[in-house]
């Protein structure tokens, strides 16, 4: 991908929303200090959350928030892919299916019947899936919500034609660089940090919580060992499994790890 802010035409950027809470788009809007620079470097051509003005495609960069949960979205994401040269999946809904992927672990019809007075009007899929499950994606930015610094770094890297600087180190690295005390060791709180991609700045451990894994699996994680390590710390039944089945529940690594965690817990119970 080559974008050049020097060319007379600024690269056109489009921001799309699928099934999501809009939090990641808000992270973009939240970059007050940098928005002027961003606007001088790129042409925000499509961003309904920010402006009703829409410039026609095709676009150089498409940033997609949200997961695919309806038949309509399945079609629309293909159109988006077709009109964007470079496609970025933004946030954990877009990269793993998000919290709404919890439906993948049960029957969606049961939910619909419980929640809606007229379930016949609801057109939804059995599953919530990531953008990459539906169309090819060039880059994934994890996070629930994403870290605005990461988004900036990705845009900067695209404009400068370089690899974005977010190494696949686990959250533990960020804890230690910030001198945060390990909540698992010092307080016995289950924490996914050892296997989760850094980038949040160890937000939860800094506030005395275990990592919920919203930045998704790190490439080097040892999930088997994580499960064996954290399940014994569970303070209530299936705490570790629930951590794994939250924001990033539908990522393959987390799915397998959650199953393993449940299995350990059930074996223990049987004993």
């Amino acid at each position: 991908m080559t974008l050049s802010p020097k060319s007379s035409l600024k690269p056109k950027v489009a921001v799309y929303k699928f099934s999501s809470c809009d939090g990641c788009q808000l992270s973009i809007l939240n970059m007050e200090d940098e928005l002027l620079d961003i606007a001088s470097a790129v042409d925000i051509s499509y961003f309904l959350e920010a402006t009703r003005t829409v410039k026609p495609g095709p676009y150089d960069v498409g940033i997609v928030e949200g997961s695919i949960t309806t038949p309509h979205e399945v079609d629309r994401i293909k159109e988006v892919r077709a009109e964007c040269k470079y496609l970025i999946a933004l946030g954990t809904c877009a990269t793993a299916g998000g919290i709404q992927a919890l439906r993948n672990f049960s029957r969606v019809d049961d939910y619909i019947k419980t929640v809606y007075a007229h379930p016949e009007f609801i057109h939804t899929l059995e599953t919530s899936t990531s953008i990459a499950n539906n169309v090819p994606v060039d880059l994934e930015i994890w996070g629930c919500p994403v870290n605005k610094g990461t988004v900036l770094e990705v845009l900067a890297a695209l404009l400068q034609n370089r690899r974005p600087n977010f190494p696949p180190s686990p959250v533990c690295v960020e804890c230690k660089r910030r001198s945060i005390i390990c909540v698992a060791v010092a307080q016995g709180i289950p924490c996914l940090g050892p296997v989760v991609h850094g980038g949040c700045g160890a937000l939860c451990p800094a506030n005395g919580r275990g990592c919920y894994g919203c930045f998704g699996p790190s490439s080097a994680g040892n999930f088997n060992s994580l499960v064996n390590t954290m399940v014994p710390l569970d303070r209530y039944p299936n705490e570790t499994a629930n951590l794994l089945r939250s924001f990033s529940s539908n990522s393959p690594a987390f799915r397998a790890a959650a199953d393993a965690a449940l299995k350990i817990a059930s074996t223990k119970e049987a004993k």
Partner: protein
Amino acid sequence: MTDKTLFIGSTVALPKPELDLLLADLRKNDYQTVGPHMQDESIVYTKIEGLKDLPRGILSEQNPASYRMLQTDKDRYFDFIPANQSWKQFLFPPRHTLFSASKEGKWQLKENDEPAPRYALIGVRACELAAINIQDKIFLREDFSDPIYRSRREGLFIMAVNCLDPDATCFCVSMGTGPRHTAGFDLCLTELDEVFLVEVGSELGRSMLAERTYDLPSAFVQNAANQAMDRATRSMGRTMDTRDLPELLTTHLDADRWNVVSKRCLSCTNCTLVCPTCFCWDAVDQADILGKSTRRERVWDSCFNPNYSFVVGGNTRPNIRSRYRQWLTHKLGTWKAQFDVLGCVGCGRCITWCPAGIDITEEVAAIRAEVNS
């Protein structure tokens, strides 16, 4: 009236409240006094002013993957064993801006010329001082002297403390580093119920202590301190057989134990980042969106990080097995060839703070057993 003239090597009995005044004197001499403090269910090293900031009556209980504190009502301040933080963070900071560069026409460099802080470290254990001495060998070599480390190290005041209550993960006796201090400090405390016994280790320490009110220690007090230290020496939680360690590890790179431990190792980097001697770092650029300015920063790195060994064509240590093996064979093996000392001081941090509870002493013993079987 006994002669109260202080010499290097003298030991005096300092009433505990006098420590506050001693720290105040240090601050008057432009030192930042940093020491142990209770925070987040653990002990951290941070700015302290006096006894009120120290963890009063706290005992620690350390086991693989577990650190717990016990509150007693004792008027004692150094009975705990340090937690994950070490003094490394003050001499070799986890993040440090090296320089920034900006493009106005041509690129201009701006060095980070922030003056180095002058620290007085309060409560340095013998294993921790040994770790500082090891990092000296890494960062203050004849052929390379790290300016960040050097400027902080040169201005350092070290108030050591003898460890009297080792935890289950301690093995400094095996490594020959503690629990008793021998040299390298400015002042060294041994804590008794009523007083601190303070040994003078340097001219600087002597001059700071000289201002305080103290007594010469009675034979009884001296004896009590010696007994407490002997007891500490005998109550190490763990041992490590260091015989032929470098050879043992570096000639058994194919041991089956590496496969066994790699199943448990999370490759999470904790052991390396809590280790007071691990020195790896990375340097990264943080550029602005327009590419007109950038800041280059040095950050702690770890041989367990997936990016650590990338070269053209891929990672030279793509598996947890090879990464763990690199760490252990370096720490207890090739470190000796590089710096004429082993890279382990027996502080036990890597055992306590490994979420999976991997025990370096157990791993070494297992390899030894495998080799001998």
